[in-house]
């Protein structure tokens, strides 16, 4: 009886399918590209045939291996993601004011944007810093600036995310010593430093040393923070910049995870137990406009990380398997034409991040294709997250797209492509050798050029850019940083250098160089140099004299 019914159902569904196929063909398709932004072809319809037999195992339950459906058992029903907007501008005192304003409005997670010179390990008075001081973030030259940045803010009461990579060791040391001066021990400090130097060579391009010594400095920091900073996320492995540089979603996924595995290997090489440090690794992804591809990327990322950590690196602690990540909407997707439309773009991207299960989110402001955001634009961006969280109902159930034939098939495809890239990287001899050969950069440049070509050939659409073109650019008010900031910051630096014990600074810089040469952990002498108010430029230069500088071979 049952068997007969089964056979009849199957016959029915087969005839239904051919009926639909015939009807579909008859209707015809509109003239459009049916593929994801990264070129994965999309079928008109997905059915159970598009998912594998082991789909249930590949999905698991939220908070359970392989975490495809989320890292926590209750996800947003337990706690919403953290709204973590990035802030920093002008001088430390300016940013301190902004921080206090944010804290008084209930925010307890601060996120520091440093200016370009600080990101490059340069002092404000360096010739290369001209025009950049305090412009895209806050200028921090010395411990004094860090103390000013957190003046009146209990460093044991806030969690701080610092977007810093090449001189991350110096800025971490400044954070630790500034806290010490408040009577707060490193054990009590919570937060994250980005500290992802590998993606700098691949995409962001703010570096100091060649990759090998950079990994040495990373190992030193990892060893230090594993021992002294149990609440500190030692690295935020970042795909964001890789995507902004023009990569596809699959490239972002693959190159970021490959970098993550390289950091795991660095920890193991430093003699640490993987379960002692991997739980303090976090991730940072981009959320772009191709809605389902993005969701699939986030879901695949969790599954790959858990699998590789368990099977290749022998992680035993569940915490080592969890991929926790922050997301930022795609800056590169915003247009200068009709900037108000960027609110809609950002909202869709935020929704993809939410449906992908992000732990924390930054939504871009509508005016970011024009300048640093105004306060009003930032407020609209925050409101976009709040509307998604509280009005749309998407947070009422966990992984609402789980089991969607399409989303599961796309998740599997993203996973497959990531493993293909891992193989290609292995064939180059690993992440660093691949970087030295320009592999990732070439792949990204190709993808970026392909996408641009598709846009210009009209195969991809960008509203008010190549379709429904804007008549003219809308006027929006933009934020500007006064030029006096640079002059004042340079003056403060000159004053500091005249007040501190310069002979002592020189002696401590020599000790930093000695550690670089001997192989001792560099973090300890850097802490001493920072304590004596050596600047970020002085410490970075001292280390560069031993480790050498990096210059890339440009790839067009």
């Amino acid at each position, binding site marked *: 009886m049952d068997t007969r019914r089964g056979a009849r159902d199957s016959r029915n569904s087969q005839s239904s399918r051919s009926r639909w196929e015939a009807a579909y063909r008859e209707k015809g398709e509109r003239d459009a590209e049916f593929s994801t932004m990264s070129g994965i072809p999309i079928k008109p319809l997905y059915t159970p045939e598009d998912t594998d037999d082991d789909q249930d195992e590949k999905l698991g339950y939220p908070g359970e291996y392989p975490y495809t459906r989320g890292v926590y058992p209750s996800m947003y029903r337990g706690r919403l993601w953290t709204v973590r907007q990035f802030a920093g501008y002008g001088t430390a005192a300016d940013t301190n004011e902004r921080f206090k304003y944010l804290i008084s409005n209930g925010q307890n997670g601060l996120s520091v944007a440093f200016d370009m010179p600080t990101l490059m390990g340069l002092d404000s008075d360096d010739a290369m810093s001209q025009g950049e001081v305090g412009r895209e973030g806050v200028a921090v030259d010395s411990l004094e600036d860090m103390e000013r940045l957190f003046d009146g803010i209990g460093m044991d009461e806030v969690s701080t995310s610092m977007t810093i990579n090449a001189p991350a060791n110096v800025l971490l040391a400044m954070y630790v010593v500034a806290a010490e001066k408040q009577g707060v021990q490193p054990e009590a400090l919570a937060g994250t430093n980005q500290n992802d130097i590998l993606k700098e060579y691949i995409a962001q391009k703010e570096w100091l040393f060649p990759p090998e010594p950079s990994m040495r400095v990373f190992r030193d920091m990892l060893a230090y923070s594993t021992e002294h900073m149990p609440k500190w996320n030692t690295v935020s492995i970042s795909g964001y910049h890789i995507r902004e*540089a023009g990569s596809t979603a699959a490239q972002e996924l693959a190159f970021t995870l490959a970098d993550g595995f390289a950091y795991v290997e660095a920890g193991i090489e430093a003699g640490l137990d993987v379960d002692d440090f991997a739980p303090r690794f976090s991730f940072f992804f981009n959320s772009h406009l191709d809605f389902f591809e993005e969701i699939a990327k986030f879901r695949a990322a969790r599954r790959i990380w858990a699998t590789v950590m368990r099977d290749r690196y022998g992680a035993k602690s569940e915490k080592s398997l969890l991929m926790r990540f922050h997301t930022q909407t795609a800056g590169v997707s915003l*247009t200068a034409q009709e900037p108000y439309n960027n609110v809609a773009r950002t909202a869709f991207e935020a929704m993809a991040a939410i449906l992908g299960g992000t732990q924390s989110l930054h939504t871009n402001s509508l005016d970011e294709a024009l300048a640093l955001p105004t306060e009003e634009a930032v407020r609209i961006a925050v409101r976009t997250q709040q509307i998604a969280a509280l009005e749309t109902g998407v947070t009422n159930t966990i992984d609402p797209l789980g089991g969607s034939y399409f989303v599961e098939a796309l998740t599997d495809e993203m996973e497959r492509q990531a493993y293909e890239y891992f193989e290609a990287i292995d064939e180059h001899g690993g992440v660093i050798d691949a970087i030295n050969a320009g592999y990732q950069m070439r792949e990204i440049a190709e993808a970026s050029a392909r996408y641009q070509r598709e846009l210009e050939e009209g195969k991809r659409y960008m509203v008010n850019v190549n379709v429904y073109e804007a008549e003219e650019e809308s006027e929006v008010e933009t934020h500007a940083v006064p030029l006096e900031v640079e002059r004042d910051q340079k003056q403060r630096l000159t004053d500091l250098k005249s007040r501190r014990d310069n002979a002592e600074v020189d002696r401590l810089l020599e000790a930093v160089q000695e550690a670089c040469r001997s192989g001792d952990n560099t973090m300890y002498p850097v802490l001493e140099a920072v304590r004596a108010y050596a600047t970020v430029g002085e410490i970075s230069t001292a280390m560069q004299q031993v480790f050498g500088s990096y210059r*890339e071979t440009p790839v067009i």
Partner: protein
Amino acid sequence: MEQTIRVVVAKVGLDGHDRGAKIIARALRDAGMEVIYTGLHQTPEQVVEAAIQEDADAIGISILSGAHMTLVPRIVDLLAEQGADDVAVFCGGTIPKGDVEKLKELGVGEVFTPGTPTTRAVEYIREAIPARQG
């Protein structure tokens, strides 16, 4: 005899966002021009020197760090000082509208903001440098 148009595409200052610079470099090359890409972290002095040494017809500056009002006028001034003010200068990047006008007043030929098709840069150069249509 007609010569090929030569363009220096430059990233000036500390900004490392080179997607736009590379896209423009490729587009100009695909349009038959000779492109010299400087790579990252160039000073205005280095860019002008490259343009003079390469006998460039135009300099395209890509800048997203907000330092354009310091660095771009410096390039224009240096070109004038070296008697090379026939070199056309154009910019691309995150540049507010108010600054676009100011840069044009200072002698920058065109400013392309995000989302501009590369064909517009090609058209601009062809118009700015009619003598060397290649």
